[in-house]
């Protein structure tokens, strides 16, 4: 038994270390780490959310009318993937903070075959809104919508092929797809990078181009750089590299590859790097920032989520999933949600620390472009899917 006790003792010691470290951290750490996040980014989550809820709300209460419950089913991946799963979950959390939802919960999908089961788990428990994340869940979502007609479904990155009209037979009245014009965000930062580059060489390190949002970011980036060249009379060389040389499971999770690729581009003269593609892109952004070049983030304002790259973060191509989800949840609660497709916001993030380095005329160009893209007077000419 001696060894057994030894193992136990080890575990207990380990637990004490973990909890000992944990307790003070909960109170002290946010000041050190979250400060910017809390003040500037509504996306950042705050711990006390659960405790602020009026009474102990449990899953059993979801069947009742008055308790508003939101369930998030992730794609194969984790809610802490620092990517779309996490953003969607944070959107749900935001709706709880805003007092819209009484209870938010997630289920992480381990394998594609569990999509229906996982959605059904929330459905059977009487949740009011179910957010499913990722295109792959599209069919399972539509199928579940028929089974649970009283529940609102929000499908992140799920383009709904049907147009909502009151009498079409294939309407699914309780599904809303949430999509984003990633090409516009890419276009904006592409133009910015081209305008700011001194070597007239810029790079983008992306996840796999078979994922349409990633491809749209990358192609938008190219188009934006070309557009800026046209305005400024420059010729900018754009390196865009997609991490398509590995299996699908690695393309977004290979920061080391991202860093090496960015370094290689910088060795060849690039002085602005756009990292688009989850953690792979983050690796590139960090490497660019470390090397003192311009770093451009993706999805959220990564000035806030990548502190180690913040000082050199020029901007980010934003695709605001978190507020998009929160808005749709709120709309579902007050009944204003519309089935069909909902286009979320895309744009570029503020320059933050580099504000002073961006010349006024570049800033003016960016503001103009942003407005032009919104009103449609400038188009990116990027098709929605890789041809």
């Amino acid at each position, binding site marked *: 038994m001696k*060894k057994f006790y030894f193992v136990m003792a080890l575990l207990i010691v380990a637990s004490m270390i973990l909890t000992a470290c944990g307790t003070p951290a909960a109170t002290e750490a946010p000041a050190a780490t979250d400060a910017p996040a809390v003040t500037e980014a509504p996306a950042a989550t705050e711990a006390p959310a659960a405790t602020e809820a009026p009474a102990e709300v449990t899953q059993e209460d979801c069947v009742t009318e008055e308790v508003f419950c939101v369930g998030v089913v992730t794609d194969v991946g984790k809610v802490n993937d620092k990517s779309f799963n996490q953003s969607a979950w944070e959107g749900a959390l935001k709706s709880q903070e805003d007092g819209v939802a009484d209870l938010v919960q997630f*289920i*992480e999908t*381990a394998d594609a075959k569990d999509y229906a*089961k996982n959605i059904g*788990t929330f459905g059977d428990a009487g949740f009011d809104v179910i957010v499913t994340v990722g295109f792959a869940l599209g069919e399972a979502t539509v199928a579940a919508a028929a089974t649970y007609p009283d529940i609102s479904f929000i499908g992140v990155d799920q383009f709904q092929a049907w147009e909502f009209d009151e009498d079409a037979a294939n309407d699914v009245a309780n599904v809303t797809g949430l999509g984003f014009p990633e090409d516009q965000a890419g276009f904006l930062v592409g133009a910015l990078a081209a305008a700011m580059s001194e070597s007239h060489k810029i790079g983008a390190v992306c996840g796999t181009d078979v994922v349409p949002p990633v491809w749209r970011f990358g192609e938008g980036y190219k188009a934006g750089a070309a557009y800026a060249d046209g305005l400024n009379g420059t010729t900018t060389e754009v390196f865009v590299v997609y991490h398509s040389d590995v299996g699908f499971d690695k393309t977004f999770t290979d920061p080391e590859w991202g860093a090496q690729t960015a370094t290689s581009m910088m060795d060849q003269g690039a002085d602005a790097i756009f990292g688009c593609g989850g953690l792979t892109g983050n690796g590139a952004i960090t490497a660019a920032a470390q090397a003192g070049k311009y770093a451009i983030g993706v999805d959220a304002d990564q000035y806030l989520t990548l502190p180690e790259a913040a000082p050199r973060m020029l901007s980010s191509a934003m695709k605001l999933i978190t507020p998009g989800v929160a808005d749709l949840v709120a709309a579902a609660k007050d009944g204003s949600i519309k089935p069909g497709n909902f286009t979320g916001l895309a744009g570029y993030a503020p320059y933050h620390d580099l504000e002073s380095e961006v010349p006024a005329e570049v800033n003016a160009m960016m503001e103009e472009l942003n407005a032009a893209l919104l009103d449609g007077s400038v188009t990116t000419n990027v098709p929605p899917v890789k041809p």
Partner: protein
Amino acid sequence: MQTEKPNSLTSQILQSISNASLIPFLAILTAVILGGIIIKIVGGDPFLAYKGLIQGSLGSAKALSETAIWATPYIFAGLAVALAFKGGLFNIGAEGQLAVGAVFSALIGYGLPEWLGYDLPAIIHLPLAIGVGMLMGGIWAGIVGALKAYTGGHEVINTIMMNYIALNTTSFLLNGVMKDPSPNNVIARTPLIAESARISPLFEGLRVHWGFVLALLVAFLIWWLLNKTTLGFEIRTVGLNPDAAQYAGINVKRTIIVTMLLSGMLAGLAGSIEVTGLNYRHELGFSIGYGYDAIAIALLGKSHPLGIVLSSFLFAAMRNGATRMQFLTQLPVDLISMLQALILLFVAADAIVRYIYRIKSKGERVVLTRGWGG
């Protein structure tokens, strides 16, 4: 074997419960206890978590059906690894063989009617879809077997490399020629396979399908093959003592290739049945590591087909029950991976378990692999 006087009735009973099942059982028990402690440490409620696991996996007909669905590929893949173990080979590449099997089953499933221009009867189409997937999985592993037999290239590294090659190649195919061309599809997946290539469900309203029954049948078949046939005798002889096998006139090289081929066919079958019985298409996803789970299952089941069926159920129940567990506790599903790792650790290092529970060793060590020398 000298007989030692048992010191008490209890230990006598413990001894009489076959050692084969005692150690795995205690390994699971220890892992569950340790897992509970870990849940407690991270601030969860272990009892609620385990309640969720049990409810979610066994609590209803639907839960049982879903557990059986998870168990089906596990049984095939576990048998694949176990068969290789019996032949003295370590097939760490069930993952890749599974993917290859799935891709080819899907190709036959959707592509053959398209190519022929007319629909096939199910009686031809379904067996063909499963058979081709199985065969391609077999060939995928057979390549490694051939490399081992003729060049001595170690199967552990080679199956891992073949995994990467399989996953890269399936990505390539599913993003390219095999991509579902339906409008608005943006992800890497094949079109749906024809009705005629689908396995029908066992019961109305539940997803569990005849593939599960097939898995049980194949488990029995493998047991029969290993223990009752000359081929099984050859595989086991090569596995236990390749020198004696050569001396006995067994064609060792051929047996190695056949063993890998069969092992790969089983893994390929796991993929085929997932496509034809459940998903009706193959879709690229983040791997949950069937290959590694299969190794754990084979070890836990002591490479015995019955043991593999049982341990597949255990793993399936854990994976399936994880949803309910997470729903109740919001604990991460990674916990399941950790529990499985602990079980595997205690099964592999049974000396630890023996030490904790004071169980005497039978003294015979089963050689599973033989370093690099092979």
